[in-house]
């Protein structure tokens, strides 16, 4: 990754120097070992602090909506999952494709600091190296070999798009798909819940939703939640109050998931940023799974020119409610 990092820096410097772009969205190293936070670079000199490591999990594409970007040519570093988000924003007409230069970065997975801590690998950590299939955590005393599956984010373990699906320039070699765990497992958590009884499912979700503090981080990070004004903030309509009330928590989470149905790229950012650890991706994936099963496989953000599943229909579509109970799998 170091080698590629230098290559990235060089490309970024050139792009800024040649005025190919006015600014570049990338990551910068913070104080702590796991801190690789979003940053934008406008000058060549500043590029030294740019970082590309296994903590660059933040999806930068939603920053393109910032008013500050208006009228500028913006460069952006994007991983596979980020490009899906980018495409979704293009499809929703939130970004003008031609105003952006995409620097694609193949990614073999990002490390979850929480897992590192859980494994006790963070003590005295100096650096993390990658050799072949393994990660080596180097501290003062020793080098510990770790399998990526132990420390990668869950969402990376079921990633299907390690390589950017769209880019203007690709930096580094494409990652082979096999290096990651299978995509097939992504619905297993949903299926487990579907197997439960109605009562148990409710108990599970009731407990999860009751943790919600309505910080709206899930909404704010979401590349499919890009409205000028969110319906939850509509003071005239008042569909959501401010009280900590169970029914409102459920209302919020159901409508949030429903509003991204057919547009959720399954980047998993919502559950990653949730401070309360609510497994929001399960709601999203439930909808994705149903869409795939009922109305055909669809991956949001893969091709902005294809109409999303909720803005189109087929005459012979199935449903989940008429007498034949076709298409229903849940208990």
């Amino acid at each position, binding site marked *: 990754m170091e080698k590629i990092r230098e290559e990235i820096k060089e490309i970024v410097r050139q792009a800024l120097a040649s005025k190919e772009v006015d600014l570049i969205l990338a990551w910068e190293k913070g104080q702590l070992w796991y801190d690789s936070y979003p940053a934008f670079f406008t000058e060549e000199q500043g590029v030294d602090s740019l970082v590309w490591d296994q903590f660059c999990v933040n999806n930068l594409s939603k920053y393109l909506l910032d*008013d*500050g970007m*208006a*009228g500028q040519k913006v460069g952006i570093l994007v991983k596979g999952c980020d490009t899906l988000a980018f495409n979704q924003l293009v*499809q*929703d*007409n*939130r970004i003008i494709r031609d105003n952006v230069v995409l620097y694609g970065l193949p990614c073999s997975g990002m490390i979850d600091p929480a897992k590192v801590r859980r494994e006790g690998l963070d003590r005295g950590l100096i650096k993390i190296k990658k050799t072949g299939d393994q990660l080596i955590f180097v501290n003062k005393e020793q080098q510990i070999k770790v399998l990526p599956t132990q420390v990668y984010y869950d969402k990376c373990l079921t990633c299907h798009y390690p390589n950017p699906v769209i880019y203007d320039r690709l930096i580094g070699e494409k990652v082979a798909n096999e290096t990651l765990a299978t995509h097939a497992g992504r619905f297993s958590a949903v299926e487990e819940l579907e197997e439960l009884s109605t009562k148990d499912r409710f108990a599970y979700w009731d407990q999860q939703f009751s943790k919600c503090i309505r910080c709206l981080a899930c909404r704010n990070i979401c590349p499919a939640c*890009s*409205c*000028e*004004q*969110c*319906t939850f903030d*509509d003071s*005239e*309509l008042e*569909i959501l109050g401010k009280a900590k009330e169970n029914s409102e928590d459920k209302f919020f989470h159901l409508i949030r998931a429903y*509003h991204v149905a057919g547009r959720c790229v399954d980047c998993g950012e919502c559950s990653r940023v949730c401070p309360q650890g609510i497994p929001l991706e399960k709601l999203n994936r439930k909808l994705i799974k149903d869409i795939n099963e009922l109305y055909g496989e669809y991956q949001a953000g893969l091709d902005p020119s294809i*109409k*999303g599943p*909720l*803005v*189109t229909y087929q*005459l*012979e579509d199935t449903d989940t409610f008429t007498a034949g109970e076709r298409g229903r799998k849940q208990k």
Partner: protein
Amino acid sequence: MQRVGVFICWCGTNISSTVNIEQVVAALENIPGVVYIKDYQYMCSEIGQNLVKDAIKEQNINRVVVASCSPRMHEATFRKAAAAAGLNPYLVEIANIREHCSWVHKDKEAATQKAISLTRAAVAKAILNEQLIPGEVGVEKRALVIGGGIAGIQTALDIAEAGYQVDLVEKTPSIGGKMAQLDKTFPTLDCSACILTPKMVDLALNSKINLYSYSEVTEVNGFVGNFEVTINQKARSIEMEKCTGCGICLAKCPAKKALSEFEEGLAKRAAIYTPFPQAVPNVPVIDRETCIKFVTGKCGLCAKLCPTGAIDYEQKDQIVNQKYGVIIVATGYDLINLDRFGEYQYLDHPDIITGLEFERLVNAAGPTGGKLVRPSDQKQPKKVVFIQCVGSRDKSERGKAYCSKICCMYTAKHAMLLRDKYPDCEAYVFYIDVRTAGKGFEEFQRRAVENYGVNYIKGMVGKIFPGDNQLQVNGVDALSGELLQLEADLVVLAAATQAKPEADEVARMLSISIDRDRFFTEAHPKLRPVETHCAGIYLAGACQGPKDIPETVAQASAAATKAIGVLSKNKLVNNPCVAKVEQAVCSGCLACIKICPYEAITEQVIEEKTRGKVRLRRVAEVNETLCQGCGGCTVACRPGAIDLKGFSNQQILAEVDAICR
């Protein structure tokens, strides 16, 4: 400040025998905003309406709630009454306490509580009602008819007869359609051309009708009263004004290898051709694919011979833009492709033909001069087998699940004509069922059996084996349970009818719907059979479903009447309960555009200032005359930037809240 007046109708005893009116009045008194309550025996009567009018004037109420029968019944009545008293009619709301309450419930207490609840919901909604003003649009007094078969011809003539301008667009070089190809017509056996060609001439001579032959509609925008249509007049390579139709060019053209479309490929035609002698307009067209001048650059014989110099090799397609008040779709039908019916060998043997080809073979103006001979050896057949339901009533991928409707009758006609002309020729008809619903149809088919000795066999043909001289037809007589093996000279297949392959494209262009079988869908299968869901667009003929000639003509005249109804108006009023966009909230995702069935939403770029910077933003905009008010867009819109007037998000939520109280 909203001042709501509530008017509760007893409907004689229809409501009051189940709903305790006094209790309803008492309950409503406590609702904020309700300033006046009145109940009366018949609110829809003149006296009842006057109660509403007086209250508007005297009590200064500005919202009216009528608790009575279904809004589908008297909403319009009370809106008119309100308007007469100077109140915007869309400030009236109806609570349905008859059909949805007193008539379906027996328990008086429960029904009374429900009536209160429904009225409360209507009050909640009424308070949020806004003044709406329906728009008016002018009507372009000109009709467009797409398709020049018998359906299109009849429609155009009828509309012209009423005094309106009609443009008829026909794709092929001549009008006439399928009917022009037919020999005789059932059940009267009069000659098709004899009854059709006079109509074609009438059309050509009618000063109100403008014919665009060899032309296609390429784009349709707009809405009822104001359709904007683009027509592409394909290059004919002949100047229509100069051509006298003398026919020298047709006779002398050296390229005579193309198969005649009109003769169903049973004869050849020249590269410069009129489809048939009675064609309207009687002006040839050059088929640029087979014309030697166009292919090799050498020839030009027709131009040299033409006495009026009408030939123009340089002619280009011409685009015509025209506005219309109404559109009639009469694009007709086709026969299905028989490629996939391998057992009938249609593609492999010349003596296995379709019913339409048979029409040409027995037609006096056809390739054989009306003498029925086998295409293979020009000999007269002695035994002819007709097979019905080839692809009709067929659920497999090869066929069509519906009944093609016309085949039973035309097969009977074919067999009868055959036996009439050539009594020594045997006729066998294989059928699944014989369907003869229609005036004189059953009698006609029985004549074929009883007077003409046509052998009807209930059963099907499994396979045809072409022999040296004859066709071995292996079939079954399902009634007797016997296998049959017939040595036939000619086999006629009643191929299923199907919608035109272009139907999808036409439906998309016109925003009308098509069914599973690609036929256009009427607005209501019984009560609105010639209208489409798109106001101002009507259907005529077999483009809506299989039809024979009398039905087609009846439907064509019906469509014309509907069209005249619109054309006779100077202004059309539209429903004001349409979508509106709050552009400040709109994110420009334009999901609304994708789902709008009326193309009523368009994209607009607006300028906005944020943090001192001007930025351009894409937003949606609703064309209120196109919008029909379904509200589908409002749900696709996540932030609620697009809302439906008269049924706004806020109003429906208020109703929910009021009902749940």
